[in-house]
């Protein structure tokens, strides 16, 4: 190295220590039986080595004799092999949106997203899950792949602390890259405001199609849910610079609220139709409350 001391990032910069202590007791649950890559603690559809008996099958030449059930051979005189449920590790993908829109209307929105990603990543790491954390905007901009174990918490923290809100969003492209970068399916947590002008359907379909157990967490600031704008304004889209001249009236606000509610419901419906879970999180609520209450209630964490 060049002699400079590498800065170590701590997750406590984002999360409260007490909160992290409470997270230690939680683990990510998958609604699907997913195939892992390494020996782990999750039951797999595959038969393999574990203590969980699964089935018998007749012996064929070449089978490991250690798995022959001799008790059955003694009773029946035939060779049967004992098959066990293989336990593999769980792959958890945490993808969070780092586009410019996440820094608006307040920096608190992006911090909330990073805290949420940190909490989920931490929970996954402490239970020896394989964790991949990705930041995306118009592409996957940063990624900490295949983290495993508590020791990699600092790598998780480094990613989260160093990636700033920047760049336009192209969700479909980012999802395409996410799919490509995750060879095994797992629990996919996508954290974003999902305010994509080109749409989110194509991107989400890519993720679902890859076999991930998809959780869509839509984070919106209170200002976005209940705007307090007034007067004659020129609204500037922070990502593409698109201008909208509006005279904010009560009717317009009413229609905006109706639209954002409809937009969220539309996303929720899309998720429901495609077997994904949907969570709407307002960034003004505490992250611990969201994690410990909401995510547990939907059995993402247990």
């Amino acid at each position, binding site marked *: 190295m060049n002699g400079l001391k590498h800065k170590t990032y701590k997750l406590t910069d984002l999360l409260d220590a007490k909160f992290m202590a409470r997270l230690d007791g939680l683990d990510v649950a998958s609604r699907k039986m997913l195939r892992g890559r390494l020996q782990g603690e999750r039951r797999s559809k595959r038969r393999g080595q574990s203590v969980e008996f699964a089935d018998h099958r007749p012996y064929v030449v070449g089978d490991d004799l250690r798995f022959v059930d001799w008790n059955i051979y003694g009773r029946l005189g035939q060779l049967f092999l004992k098959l066990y449920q293989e336990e593999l590790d769980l792959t958890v993908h945490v993808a969070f949106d780092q586009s410019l*829109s*996440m820094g*608006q*209307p307040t920096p608190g*929105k992006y911090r909330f997203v990073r805290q949420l990603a940190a909490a989920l990543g931490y929970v996954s790491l402490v239970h020896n899950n394989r964790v991949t954390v990705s930041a995306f905007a118009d592409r996957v901009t940063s990624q900490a792949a295949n983290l495993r174990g508590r020791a990699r918490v600092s790598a998780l923290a480094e990613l989260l602390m160093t990636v700033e809100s920047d760049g336009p969003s192209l969700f479909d492209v980012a999802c395409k890259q996410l799919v490509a970068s995750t060879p095994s399916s797992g629990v996919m947590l996508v954290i974003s*405001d999902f*305010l*994509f*002008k080109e749409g989110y359907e194509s991107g989400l379909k890519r993720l679902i199609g890859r076999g991930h157990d998809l959780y869509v967490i839509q984070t919106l*600031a209170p200002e*976005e849910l209940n705007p307090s*704008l*007034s*007067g*004659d*304004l*020129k*609204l*500037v*889209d*922070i*990502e593409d610079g*698109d*201008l*909208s*001249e*509006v*005279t*904010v*009236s*009560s*009717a*317009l*606000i009413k*229609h*905006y609220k*109706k*639209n*954002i509610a409809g*937009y969220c419901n539309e996303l929720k419906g899309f998720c429901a139709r495609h077997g994904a879970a949907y969570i709407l999180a307002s960034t003004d609520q505490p992250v611990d409350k969201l994690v410990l209450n909401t995510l547990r209630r939907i059995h993402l964490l247990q």
Partner: protein
Amino acid sequence: MQWLTPAMALIAGAVTVPLLVLLYFLKLKRTERVVSSTLLWQRAIQDLQVNAPFQRLRRNLLLLLQLLALIAVLIALAGPVLNMNQGAGQRYVILIDRSASMNSQEGEEAMSRLDMAVEQARTFVNSLRNKAVFGLRDRADQAMIIAFDEHAKVMCNFTSDKSQLFTALAAVTPTDRTSHVGEALTVARAFTQSPGLETNNRTSEQRAQLHLFSDGRIMDLENQLIEEGELVYHRVGESSNNVAITAMQARRSYEQTDQIQVFASLAHFGESPVTCDVQVSVNQDVVAVREVALAPAQTDANGLVIMPGRASVDVAVTYDGAGILEVRHLFKDCLSADDAAWTVIAPPRQLNVALVTQGNPVLESVFQACPLASFNTLTAEAFETAMADQAVSPYDVTVLDNLLPTRLPRGRYLAFGVVPEAMGMTVSGSLENQFIVDWRPNHSILRHVNPSHVYAAQAVEVVPPREARVLAQFNDGPAVVLTQSGGGTFVWVGFDCLKSNWPFEPSFVLFCYNVMDYLGMQVTEAHAAQLRAGEPILIRGLMPGTKAELSGPDRDTETVTTDDQGGLRFPGTDRVGTYSVAVAGETPKLFAVNLLDSEESCVAPRSDLVLSDQIVSEQDAPVSRANQPLWPFAVIVALLFVCIEWWVYNSKMRL
């Protein structure tokens, strides 16, 4: 509804409305606000536009409200007037009383009744309906204005031009004359019959409504015939508090010529007794002051004065010069015209009398007993010789005793039994055995004279001219005639006194004394008379074409010229006071003009006008504008729109 200034509103609207719309077309400077995404805002805007059918209108609601406010202001600018008088235009005659009682000043502002009447008439004129701007069949009201006192003066013929009517109202000037409405009604009806200056498709059948603005103190109301509803009476004034000098006379004593006896009568029309000082001044020097107590006036149940409280003042003043004698009471009341009375006093003078006779001891002894400066007895020939080249008789009075000189110069004559040609009387025959059966005891010549026993054996039968005054009447013709003609004054007795029993009557001496007194007054006061307001100033005996400077109260000095007969007549004695007529090279002649009228001095306004056939009551409500101006309402509506616009704007900002 009418528009007073539609052109102004149209011009202002043509400028401001496009300007306001243009301002809305200009790009609004909006505040930039960075948001995470405009996705949902654009959708909301699209939704708003799609879901609201009147979105374009709603988006411009502020413009709409501002336009409405502007239109309301423009309407106010156009001067909308709601006309309560619907229907075809009508004709009105405004009669304004400008007599003496209308000079009463009332209220804290001491506004005269005439000013109040003019103000009310102005309000009435304001209420007249104009021709509507876009009304093709509409007609405007027309009005004419007549100011009246004893006489009527047309201030303005029928017109709908309000500015002309206002000008005419402003030109109404007060007078101190008495009030007679008859002439004004006659004039009004005469004008009503004619189509007027602006015919405007009027027919003479349309009856004009008369609007009388007066205090009701009008002399000749009982003689007037008014159709039902023809006259509307607007009463002016409230007060009745007035003390007036209703009679005044100052006579120089016949015996003691430096003594002037002043008589004045005062009347009080108020409700409470008053005590006031009466001062007598000569040439503005106060010579006497008397305190007078006046009882309150007696009124009937309706508050009308039946009998004023009266008092009289009798003051003897020693003054042997000429001048103006003024009697003035010092009580502060509402009418000032009757607070003082004036008279012109001439210097003391005794008469030069000539008796033209063939010998008449009766007349000689009578006139010798009179206090005369000189008394000459002449024959007819001697008189003619003396008067051969005289245009004016050198004698103050000439007595013609049954003799008639061929030529009589201008002068004052007492003629017995002869008819001077200058009198203009026509001799129609002779009378015999005549008794005086009728006479005028109130005339100063026959004062204290009782000729009821006068018998004339022979008398001249004459037909007197129209202007002559017959003082005594025989059974079949005039017995005593007073006439003024040809620059002279004649007292004519139609018989020879020696052919009657009159010299044996006490009344004969009194008659001769009175004639000397009367004609003597003519000498001393030939030019100076005590006139009533409105009576003309008459001066005779001047050269034709003579110019004189006339000055008087409330008027500038003006030049008047004598007529072909050498007479000077000036009728404009509208205000009380002293008038002066100055002929070049002569001493100015003074005239005193007084009100001396109880009816005018009784200023208590009448609520009801008692006409010959009906009673017209005053209008219950004061004159009000029948035309209701609507511009304040338009301004209120404009303010309302501005408030709504403000509220809408703030609502948009707040929500």
